[in-house]
């Protein structure tokens, strides 16, 4: 996504300035909607002007230009100010901690009155600094549609007070949604979500924020091995582990350890611990399933009635049960979920896997075929059809 040649502006660094500048404008009393628009214009201007005239203080430059845009928007006599804007710089807005600004903006963008898709889109734009075009591309919708989605979200925020702390759990969920939305395509949303989660961990000591960052890193590390040269999905047990990103794994483990040290476990920490154990195995056979099962036990024990409230955790645990206590035990675990997840492809896929593990290939083939029929992703469906055919042919 980001083309870093020396002659060009480092877009990543540029976008890293967005939270502080925008938070400064909003805290000063500017309308969120107008301030965000103005800052977007300032970013475009920076990409145009900076290669020839690099600013001494990039953040102050952006704040100044965005402020000018706001003034322009209010007044009609804009021409004179445009001539001046690139040469004068105001002092930066109120000196607050960078992390506070990021957190403040994330709370704005993840306001509970917004629908999840709007929260994600607005976060990518107002905190991530992505353009509407980039976000539209990432989600494969027309730019006009994404522009409407974002401007509706901003209008919704317009009537709300933005001075109270928000719900960190919502912020974490929005970042994870953004992460899950894309590993491929023209815009690296997964990388963007990791960047934002990293910023978030500077702003809060909450161990779940670090748990989420660790989870993203530890899963992202396996991305290079997740598809083969023909674009086919490769499951964890068959991946070429030499292609995993060891640097990312090391960082993920470090972040996870610092989260666990706080002694306040949560779902992201548990899931990250499972991911770390997978990443730690040199071969699929060396996977430490008993420890993975122990973490899944912790995960499902976090709340009441996990079968209804967190069925995907119970389903993931069933795989670990199958490896530790045998395929039949794993299948019994999935039976408890039939009512809740029986219509989802993942439930059938797990049963197919457990049947295969237990050596019952005809049952595996049937379960994989059922899973393929319910799959909503092309690569996953092809994988399941292939698995069903292989189980039938063996």
């Amino acid at each position, binding site marked *: 996504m980001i083309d870093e040649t020396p002659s060009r502006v480092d877009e990543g660094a540029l976008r890293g300035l967005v939270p502080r500048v925008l938070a400064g404008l909003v805290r000063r009393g500017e309308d969120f909607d107008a301030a965000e628009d103005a800052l977007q214009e300032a970013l475009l201007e920076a990409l145009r002007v900076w290669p020839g005239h690099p600013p001494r203080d990039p953040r102050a430059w952006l704040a100044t230009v965005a402020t000018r845009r706001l003034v322009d928007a209010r007044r009609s006599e804009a021409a004179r100010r445009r001539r001046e804007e690139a040469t004068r710089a105001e002092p930066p807005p109120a000196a607050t901690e960078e992390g506070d600004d990021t957190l403040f903006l994330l709370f704005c963008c993840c306001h509970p009155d917004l629908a999840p898709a709007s929260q994600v889109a607005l976060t990518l734009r107002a905190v991530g600094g992505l353009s509407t075009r980039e976000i539209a591309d990432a989600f494969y919708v027309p730019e006009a549609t994404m522009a409407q989605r974002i401007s509706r979200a901003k209008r919704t925020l317009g009537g709300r007070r933005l001075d109270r702390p928000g719900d960190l759990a919502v912020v974490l969920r929005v970042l994870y949604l953004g992460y899950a939305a894309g590993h491929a395509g023209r815009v690296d949303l997964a990388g963007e979500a990791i960047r934002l989660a990293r910023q978030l961990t500077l702003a809060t000591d909450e161990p779940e924020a670090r748990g989420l960052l660790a989870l993203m890193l530890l899963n992202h590390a396996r991305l290079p091995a997740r598809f083969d040269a023909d674009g086919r999905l490769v499951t*964890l047990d068959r991946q070429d582990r030499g292609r995993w990103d060891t640097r990312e794994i090391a960082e993920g483990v470090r972040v996870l350890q610092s989260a666990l040290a706080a002694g306040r476990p949560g779902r992201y920490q548990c899931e990250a611990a499972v991911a770390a154990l997978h990443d730690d195995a040199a071969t699929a056979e060396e996977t430490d399933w008993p420890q993975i099962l122990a973490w899944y036990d912790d995960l499902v024990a976090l709340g009441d009635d996990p079968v209804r409230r967190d069925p995907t955790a119970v389903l993931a645990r069933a795989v670990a049960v199958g490896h530790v206590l045998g395929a039949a035990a794993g299948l019994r675990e999935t039976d408890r979920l039939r009512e809740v997840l029986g219509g989802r492809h993942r439930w059938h896929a797990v049963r197919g896997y457990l049947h295969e593990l237990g050596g019952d290939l005809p049952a595996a083939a049937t379960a994989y075929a059922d899973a393929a029929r319910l799959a909503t992703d*092309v690569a996953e*469906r092809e994988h399941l059809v292939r698995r069903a055919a292989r189980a039938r042919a063996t």
Partner: protein
Amino acid sequence: MPRYLLLKHYSGGPQPHHPFPPMDRWAPEDVEAHFAFLRHVGELLEKNGELVDVQALTPAQTWVRYGGPDAAPVTTDGPLPETSDLVAGWYLVDVESFERAVEIAAYISSEPGPGGGPLHEWIDVREVMSGAHPDGGPSGGAPSDGPHE
């Protein structure tokens, strides 16, 4: 977010809620009202940030198949339109949930018919699979590593 194709049909589908004549026999103002409503739906969906695409198809249907080596493609006009499933057009929407897609489909189905009352037309709601984008790399979505974790 899931995407759904909301298909309108010229023919086929469940038993109609009530019989109605083909549109060329409606009063002109009813025809106008009908088209205006469908345009309004497209505009509304775009304003909501939910519209991906809207298209209409002519009723002419040609079936084509490979004819074999050194042979021309085989074509036929297909089965009688009254008895077969004939798609008339669609809205492709990108929405929060299946429930929202159903809500939009029901709204489309409230389109005015002859006399101005709702047509109650059946709308065919189909989920679009992710990851089929030609420019999206191996997969536009993010399938997990599979059922092992």
